[in-house]
């Protein structure tokens, strides 16, 4: 495949991966998200992950639903086919595409609204079907694109909100995934590249459905009930100020902490998110223990990060279905059409 070796000119100084490509070759268009949006950090991590894995960009397929998160596939892998479908239905499109061509690498980007509200059924069934797909939730607790309504996920920025959360329990995609028998599930934070990049890479390499929940703060609408800096407050304030559309430019929140440790991250609105990185000895193969561990930490107000569970024994969709190894899209018509003689023979039974 001669054209792989043809990275776009120049940049002689930039490092190259095994394919001779630079990180540039894994980039996309300029982001149009708010300055400082966590999603842009996830984009950067994805670029690094693909680059590091030496994947030829055009053999990757990137998919998404609708939302700020849904836009991000435009911002990486310019040389990959992308599909920005309808809200909450990316899993089905990914299933169809992966069904058609099992030899490509699939990465789906979703939001917490996209995944846990409108798309919950599709997410659950893609997990159950074990489609070979890296599924990233850019989880910010709000509907970013439609301007900050609450989403069904935990209000990740607020520890103070825990009491209220008990009233209308937030949906935790990790616990949900575990209860559905997911074969790979991890959690990380958008600003923690050290942890996120390898997790994404592990998810990409996992054969089957890999769920990575990335807490990715919305710098514009991140909000918590009760907090005076919350969106609720802002909104009421805005109503007063008629049509104000001012969005304060913010900076990305970056963190770095060691395995086994916890860290308090201050969000843009002043809320505190407590992350705890899995200790190094943690055994992610026992699904029930992982569930118990995560849940227990959640009760303590801590969000566990890391590779939470992996089960290499699960067979992915095609293996279960017994599909041929060659991608269906490449099977020639001659191998699919039984021809006129077979039709004549068959029709004897219709008499």
């Amino acid at each position: 495949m001669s054209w792989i070796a043809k990275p776009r000119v120049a940049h002689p100084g930039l490092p190259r991966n095994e394919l001779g490509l630079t990180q540039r070759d894994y980039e996309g268009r300029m982001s149009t998200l708010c300055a400082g949006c966590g999603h842009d950090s996830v984009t950067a991590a994805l670029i690094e992950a693909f680059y590091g894995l030496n994947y030829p960009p055009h053999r990757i397929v990137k998919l998404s639903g609708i939302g700020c998160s849904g836009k991000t596939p435009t911002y990486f892998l310019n040389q990959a086919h992308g599909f920005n479908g309808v809200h909450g239905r990316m899993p089905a499109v990914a299933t169809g595409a992966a069904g058609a061509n099992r030899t490509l690498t699939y990465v789906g980007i979703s939001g917490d609204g996209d995944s846990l509200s409108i798309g919950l059924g599709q997410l659950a069934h893609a997990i159950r079907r074990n489609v070979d797909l890296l599924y990233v939730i850019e989880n910010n607790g709000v509907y970013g694109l439609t301007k900050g309504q609450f989403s069904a996920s935990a209000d990740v920025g607020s520890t103070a909100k825990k009491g209220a959360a008990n009233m209308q329990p937030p949906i935790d995609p990790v616990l949900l995934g575990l209860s559905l028998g997911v074969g790979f599930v991890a959690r990380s934070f958008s600003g923690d590249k050290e942890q996120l990049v390898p997790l994404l890479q592990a998810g990409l390499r996992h054969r089957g459905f890999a769920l990575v929940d990335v807490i990715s703060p919305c710098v514009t609408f991140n909000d918590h009930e009760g907090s005076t800096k919350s969106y609720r407050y802002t909104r009421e304030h805005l109503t007063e100020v008629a049509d104000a559309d001012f969005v304060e430019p913010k900076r990305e929140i970056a963190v770095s902490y060691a395995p086994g440790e916890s860290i308090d991250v201050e969000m843009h609105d002043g809320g505190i998110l407590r992350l705890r990185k899995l200790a190094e000895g943690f055994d992610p193969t026992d699904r029930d223990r992982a569930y118990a561990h995560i849940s227990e930490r959640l009760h303590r107000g801590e969000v566990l990060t890391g590779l939470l569970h992996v089960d290499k024994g699960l067979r992915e969709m095609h293996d279960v279905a017994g599909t041929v190894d060659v991608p269906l899209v490449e099977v020639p018509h001659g191998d699919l059409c039984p021809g006129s003689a077979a039709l004549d023979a068959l029709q004897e039974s219709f008499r």
Partner: protein
Amino acid sequence: MITTPQPPAPPSGARVNDVALKIGTVNGTGSASANGLLRRAIFRMGIPVSGKNLFPSNIQGLPTWYEIRANGGGHTARSRSFDLVVAMNPATYRRDIDEVRAGGWVLHDSSWPLGRDLLRDDVTFLGAPMAQMCADNFTGDRVRILMKNIIYVGVLAALLEIDRTVLRSLLEQTFAKKKALLDSNFLALRLGHDYAKEHFECPLPVHLAPMDENRESIIIDGNTAAALGCIYAGATLAAWYPITPSTSLVDAFSHFCGRYRKDPETGKNRYLIVQAEDELGAAGVVVGGGWAGVRSFTATSGPGLSLMGEFIGLAYYAEIPCVFFDVQRTGPSTGMPTRTQQGDIQSVIYASHGDTKHIALFPADPGECFHFAVDAFDLAERFQTPVFVVSDLDIGMNDWVIPRLEWDDSYRPDRGKVLDADELEEIGTFFRYLDVDGDGVPYRTLPGTHPRGAYFTRGSGHDRYGRYTEDEEGYTDVMDRLDRKIGSAAPAVPAPVLRASPDGRRASLGIVALGGVDRAILEAQEILTAGGLPVDYLRIRAFPFANSVGTFLEAHERTFVVEQNRDGQLRSILVTEVPFPGDRLESVRRFGGLPLSATDVVEQIQEKLGERTRLESSVPGTFA
């Protein structure tokens, strides 16, 4: 398709090979196989025949009917009245007996007496103690229940002169490996036959006699035929969610895949069937598959169609080939899941919010289900758009006699404009939505082919270069091209079929229709013409409409649009899409869930014409 009627010479007072028969039973009792046996035997006798199953939306214990129409003249549409009714279900005696034509016969189980209030003067009651015969001759509930069905087959064999050798050989085929069951069946058949011979005047004046009309025919339902079409078209990805009456289409596809789609070396599958979590999921999988380059399809019915709306709009706007089978049932809402209708025509053609229009094919019988399935995949890829094959429960699930299916081994799928790696290597830049050839159809690429083929597919505003846009110009440009593109499919889709008035006279009256009402209309056309009302008939087979539709309308003073829905949906689309005065198009409709009969058409047209003159031949069943 309709051969010239060749009625065998009837003995005085009798009618041969023109029988309408109805069997009323309870579902879950195995009567379906007995009825199938009857229908197949008549078919093997060389007589054109149809079998229509009226079953409840339930699994066991409710009334169910099977209607058989055998007609030497090839008229196998539903008949509204019956020469003979087999009344096996006491719960429906009343209505079943009502449906016998004056002078007809009722066969019933005389193990118990028939209520006096059920009797009619103008029909003959034939009682056979079938339950009693079962009790006397068989042991075990299961076998007794099953054999009662075969006993009535035996009785009918005698009454109608159905060939018993044929019946026996069919049973032998079925129970080849079950000797005991075969013996029971043979016995039951004989019991029924002998009882009839002994107690009734056999055959009835209305009966059957061997012909040779079926040499080149098969008997098949539309869903099986459509599934076979998908196999032959090379479809490899099916995604679906079960719903009556489309379920058997995917079942049949799965069955044929098991037979024809195993890799001979590895035994692995050259197909993938995804039973999705719902119809939104099914539609999404099909869109994803079409986008990635395989021939993908789903099959559904009304409620599923409503759920698929959002994805259909995406496929239209993002120009993704995929095929939807809509096997219509009676709507709206859940409606009557096991009854037929043509109620989704409008919903299909304009499916999804915003400006959309879809290519739709309307098969009239299982033969067209097969061929249109293949056409649908070609059209979908050629025009890069979702294509609908719209049939209905009557076509999809009932048994139709059709000419043998033909397959041309030189067929090659039309993949449309897909650029491969070499072509991409050559061209400078690839723009997904650019109308390079001026025909409204852009080029597409498949994921994984080449970095230069990469683009971003989206359902949001985009311009001809595939770029995101919120600008009037870039947006309108693509939308106008889409309109041209779909319009340009008119000459490519199956053309309308004209059947001029059979008496050769120039007719000032026209009939326009689509789909499974065809046989009823062909029969009605003969009746009307015979009654002095020559009428031409144009059967539309696809949307967008060919020019000949407009020509036909212009050429006739009055045109009746015959359809099986309440709102005259085809008529609506005609007045919308063909610049033609709506007041010259009149609706002929019947939409209560039953297959259309010629009588329905004849009566309504007569009424519209204000002609009260009774046409002698207007009641099917009296037409030889």
